[in-house]
């Protein structure tokens, strides 16, 4: 079964005044239909850039893709006809939920106007004749019957995201809504075109913890109800744990580990991942930071970019990027395997079972099962 989305060895960077910043270096990931994948990493790791590269909305003057492919349903989005991608993929087959819902809205139009405007173009009911892209926007008609059907779809979806009194809400302006309401609205807007994949870029970072719990639950539920795949970028490991099926970790533009979620948290393999999980405060208040700082991407370290901060690094780490190593397979039947890009990943055997145990008080801690 081919993956719905497969990013293969994507390398890209931005040309800045100070030189070429290599933001992504051979990043890869793959999402299956209906799967929720968490793209985890700290600030500067490139996850937002990767999301933008998939959508094809990188700044054209400065961004340069140096290698790799982005395969969506078998088609490489980077080399496909841009007009076709714009019409059928962007905002339709792949939609986006941004980090800050407030600035994504135009403050001078009502929320309802903005949603209907989007549906004029991206509704699943709209026909998509090729070759009419040159028509100016105002000249395109919005047939009344389709408009009515779209409007009903909007109300139905607003209900599904638990927004009260949808018809009234549509008449409001963005500044009249709260952060949680705006984010629910963005989720609804992302689902309206009937996409196959929704990219959610740090959707709950700006929200309070109780609202975050509501929104995460909502995303998970809607994704499985509608069989929509979700690519969730976040730096919050707790959020990744909550709703993702699998997790990909990125560091400084390189992907370093990927695994199904339970296995990922139970037994991290890559040194960065291990340190990342160790830096979460546990019940007794202990938390270990990671020494050193994230590299400046104008002159990134060669080979594995984590090597300056890794105590296990050796010469090969400093020279070439480690290949993907599948772990935890062995005699087990093929299934989603853990993969790590490390010359010396942690193996259960080496560590004497230390990481094989689920730490009940790991993470943003409380004892489980209350």
């Amino acid at each position, binding site marked *: 079964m081919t993956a719905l989305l497969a990013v293969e060895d994507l390398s890209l960077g931005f040309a800045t005044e100070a030189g070429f910043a290599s933001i992504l270096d051979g990043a890869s990931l793959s999402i299956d239909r209906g799967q929720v994948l968490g793209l985890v990493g*700290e*600030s500067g790791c490139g996850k937002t850039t990767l999301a933008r590269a998939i959508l094809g909305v990188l700044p054209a003057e400065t961004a340069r893709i140096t290698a790799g492919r982005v395969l969506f349903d078998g088609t490489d989005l980077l080399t496909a006809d841009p007009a076709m991608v714009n019409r059928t993929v962007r905002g339709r087959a792949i939609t986006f939920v941004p980090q800050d819902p407030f600035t994504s809205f135009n403050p001078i139009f009502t929320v309802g106007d903005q949603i209907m405007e989007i549906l004029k173009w991206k509704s699943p009911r709209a026909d998509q004749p090729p070759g009419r892209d040159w028509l100016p926007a105002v000249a395109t008609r919005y047939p009344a019957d389709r408009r009515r059907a779209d409007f009903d779809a909007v109300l139905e979806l607003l209900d599904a995201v*638990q927004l009260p009194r949808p018809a009234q809400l549509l008449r409001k302006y963005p500044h009249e809504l*709260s*952060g*949680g*309401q705006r984010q629910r609205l963005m989720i609804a807007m992302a689902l309206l075109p009937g996409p196959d994949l929704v990219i959610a870029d740090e959707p709950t970072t700006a929200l*309070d*913890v*109780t*609202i*975050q*719990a*509501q929104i*995460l*639950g909502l995303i*998970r539920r809607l994704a499985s109800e509608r069989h929509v795949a979700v690519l969730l970028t976040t*730096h919050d*490991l*707790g*959020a990744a*744990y*909550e*709703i993702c099926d699998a997790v990909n970790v990125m560091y400084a533009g390189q992907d370093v580990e990927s695994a199904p979620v339970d296995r990922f*948290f*139970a037994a991290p393999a890559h040194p960065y991942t291990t*340190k*990342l*999980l160790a*830096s*979460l*405060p546990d*019940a007794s*208040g*202990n*938390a*270990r*930071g*990671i020494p050193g*700082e994230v590299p400046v991407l104008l002159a990134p370290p060669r080979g594995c970019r984590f090597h300056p901060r890794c105590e296990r690094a050796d010469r090969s780490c400093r020279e070439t990027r480690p290949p993907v190593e599948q772990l935890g397979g062995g005699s087990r039947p093929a299934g989603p395997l853990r993969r790590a890009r490390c010359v010396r990943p942690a193996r259960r055997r080496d560590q004497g079972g230390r990481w094989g145990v*689920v*730490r*009940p*008080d*790991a*993470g*943003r*801690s*409380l*004892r*489980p*099962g*209350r």
Partner: protein
Amino acid sequence: MSFDLMPGEVFGLVGESGCGKSTLGKTIMGINQPTAGEIRFEGQQIDRLSPAARRAVRRSLQYAYQDPGASLDPRWKIGSSLREPLMIHTELDATARDQRIRSILEAVGLPDTHLELYPHEISGGQQRRVGLARILTLHPKVVILDEPTSGLDVSVQATVLALFRDLRERFALTYMLISHDLAVVRTMCSRVAVMYLGRIVETGPTEEIFERPRHPYTRSLLAAIPKIGGARVTRNFWLQGEPPDPANLPSGCRFRTRCPKATDLCAKEDPAPRPLSQALVACHFPD
């Protein structure tokens, strides 16, 4: 709302956005004016002081912004920024000032060479340390930390918190930690107060609050936190809706519009904090 801050403790003030915790911090500092009640510092009432008297208080009671680095004037050299509090408040001569600054810089782990640099010439993390150093030059007694780890990556948070702990020991400080991040509060604080819409709903020792939360809101806050390795909290999260508009508060208990236990009594009477085991809970039906 009422609470006490004991010397030497780390007191945590938790709540979500709009609960008023930041406003409280600023009111204590005198940036906002209270409409009722009083604030006492070391026995002296400080909420209605003249600007000159207030300035004297500020020597002992300091406020660290969410990003202490932003508190530095971008046009001033770091040395000047560090010297400023001493010039305003003390009579120390140039040598004594210099000594004090150098020792503070060393305490936050920065080299002397930074004195000649401008804020934009050092990294964000270092700016943060300089901002903290500036507050500490006066050897204050109490420091209000306003969302010190907000927006930071998890690995950086650990380092920052370690720095705070270290400074507290070295300078015998008392902290009031304002944060929405419960994990941070749990690791740093000895006592915690939970706020909702301008009221403190529960106060108590940290362990007590986290292990045996009694107010329904506190329980919902704790229930919302993902627990890695445990059951998924978002599947059955029970708190619905959002806090009501502060301009339009519900009668009686402010939490009643979202509380599963709400009754008529809750709509009529705003519960006062009552002691329960080691905690103070403002609820008619605490657990």
